[in-house]
């Protein structure tokens, strides 16, 4: 037992050679679909809205006769499972959904199957939020961060648009605005865009140097100057809850998150959402097929369905997401289309992480 333990402990770090990679690469799409039907089922690990997705995928099940299982689980649990079983010969995950920027934290080609056998469709999105998913990841869920506000307190005409507007709002209404700096990306999207505007930082460049970090300082000074007039909250959901509870008037939020909470009767329906002119980030979730997927062909067919214009139109209609296929219809979005122009991309790594660390050191810890 000892010997086995130590050899396995040693093997845990090394990547195993893929087992299924060769099978599908020689097949035509029709053959893949045929094999998928033979496999008959697949398991999709998606970390949010599982109940709604179970309803949404029924048209796929009807069309192909392949049943889809969506296990419950949260983001951390799903990613830990994916990483823990990466060396198993056959895993449990067929299709894996993850925040698009999370895919950047792993090595795609050693973990996931190539998707180049999918029927050609230029409308699909594999570059999102500053991350290039290449042949391995496709976006299926687009979302947008912005500001949730209570229209009873702030009228549409008075909504802050520029950083100066925000500074004025903070001064006029102390402690009625709050944002999170972790546990969810809405707050980080807000402060990073403020930093970008104040200090003129170029987030599209991922290079790290002391000079580049030092150049962000005016942005930190801006936050420190107004420190007494805004609140630091605990998470994405804390932001929305505190606006709903009438404590805060405005707080950063995700469009789809707010819509979901309102649909469930969790927060007030009156709360509205906008994207300020200074810009806030858009992002999304992507899917990939692990190398040890037990039903690789069915997974492939499912990814094809998920990223199709029809499915993306449906998601836009039912969940208020930004469609992740150029041919999809996005008329049902929650934000007026002209505001979409203020959408920004997430900063490139590793620069973005360094700015986040510096923000914590220079602003959060100084409070």
């Amino acid at each position, binding site marked *: 037992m000892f010997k086995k333990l130590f050899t396995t402990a040693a093997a845990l770090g090394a990547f195993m050679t893929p087992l299924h990679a060769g099978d599908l690469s020689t097949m035509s799409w029709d053959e893949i679909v045929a094999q998928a039907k033979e496999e008959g089922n697949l398991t999709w690990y998606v970390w949010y809205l599982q109940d709604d997705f179970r309803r949404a995928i029924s048209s796929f099940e009807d069309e192909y006769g392949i049943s889809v299982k969506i296990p419950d689980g949260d983001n951390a649990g799903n990613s830990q499972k994916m990483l823990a079983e990466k060396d198993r010969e056959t895993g449990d995950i067929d299709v894996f959904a993850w925040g698009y920027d999370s895919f950047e934290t792993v090595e795609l080609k050693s973990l996931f199957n190539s998707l180049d056998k999918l029927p050609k469709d230029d409308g699909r999105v594999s570059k999102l939020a500053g991350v290039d998913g290449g042949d391995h990841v496709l976006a299926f869920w687009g979302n947008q961060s912005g500001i949730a506000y209570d229209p009873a307190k702030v009228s549409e005409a008075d909504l802050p648009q520029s950083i100066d507007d925000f500074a004025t709002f903070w001064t006029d209404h102390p402690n009625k605005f709050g944002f999170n700096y972790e546990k969810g990306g809405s707050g980080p999207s807000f402060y990073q865009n403020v930093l970008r505007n104040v200090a003129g930082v170029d987030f599209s460049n991922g290079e790290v140097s002391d000079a580049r970090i030092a150049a962000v300082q005016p942005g930190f000074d801006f936050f420190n100057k107004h420190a007494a007039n805004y609140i630091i909250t605990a998470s994405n959901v804390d932001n929305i809850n505190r606006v709903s509870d009438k*404590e805060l008037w405005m707080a950063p939020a995700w469009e789809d998150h707010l819509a979901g909470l309102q649909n469930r009767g969790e927060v007030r329906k009156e709360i509205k959402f906008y994207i300020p002119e200074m810009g806030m980030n858009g992002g999304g979730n992507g899917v990939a097929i692990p190398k040890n997927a037990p039903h690789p062909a069915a997974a492939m067919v499912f990814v094809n369905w998920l990223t199709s214009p029809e499915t993306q139109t449906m998601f836009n209609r039912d969940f208020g997401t930004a469609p992740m296929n150029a041919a999809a219809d996005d008329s049902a979005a929650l934000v007026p289309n002209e505001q979409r122009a203020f959408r920004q991309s997430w900063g490139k790594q590793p620069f973005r992480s360094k700015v986040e660390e510096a923000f914590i050191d220079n602003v959060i810890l100084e409070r």
Partner: protein
Amino acid sequence: MSYARLNSLLIVMIVTVALIWLAIPFTMAILWSLVDPAEPWTADKLLPPVMSFYRWVDMWENSSLKYALISSYSLAPTAAILGLCLAMPTAFALGRFNFAGRELAKLLCLLPLVVPPFITAIFFSALLFQLGLNTWRFGAIVFAHSILFLPYAIRILTVSFENVRQDHIDAARDLGASPWARFRVAYLPALKPGISATLLIVFIQSIEEFAIAFIIGSPDIVTIPTLLYSALGQDFVRPNAAVLSLILVVPNVFLMLILERLMRSANPALSSGKG
């Protein structure tokens, strides 16, 4: 003031504190569970504006709650018993023998508690996968949980073994009792509270453990924390979380009352003779 008066005064005081300590959170949980999706409950309202059992019914009918209850309530007691069995010999050694390195051994027993959860979750599960334990998911989770919560079992039982009185053991031996009779007469009475405490703690820890049960069990075995983390995760749905935690509390309370009774039954034997 007489002892009895003082005692009843204390009871009243503690019950009052305990009620505030418990009644507020539990009442709030019950109220939250009754929030109807038609209108949210905001903090400025004393009671939810619209109340119904919608969440309870919905949760019971449309989620994996039933399977989760079955698997959690069969996993946890099994893990508790296995943990108890594994911990007994070590606790016996730590509690009854004075050997060099005993304090170090006690400290090392805490290892599973100090390893950061994400390291345990990923690498311990991967280790179990590599050992081939994943073919029997139920067994793998039971095994993992009993190892993970051994520190509680060992620590609590060590304290109990230390409480066994040498004169009782000696007396039993002098009277010619067999090893089993000696255990029953001298050890068991002192161990009983420790045994029930161990069972309770490992049971509760196992019921609450999420990461490993999820990584090894999913998608075949769903446990209650999996549902709880879905409800409390990104889309922290407060009413659903309240329903789930209340459903969890009910069987646990019964269990605790039973254990509490078992524990008391140990007492008379302890105060041997004088009663």
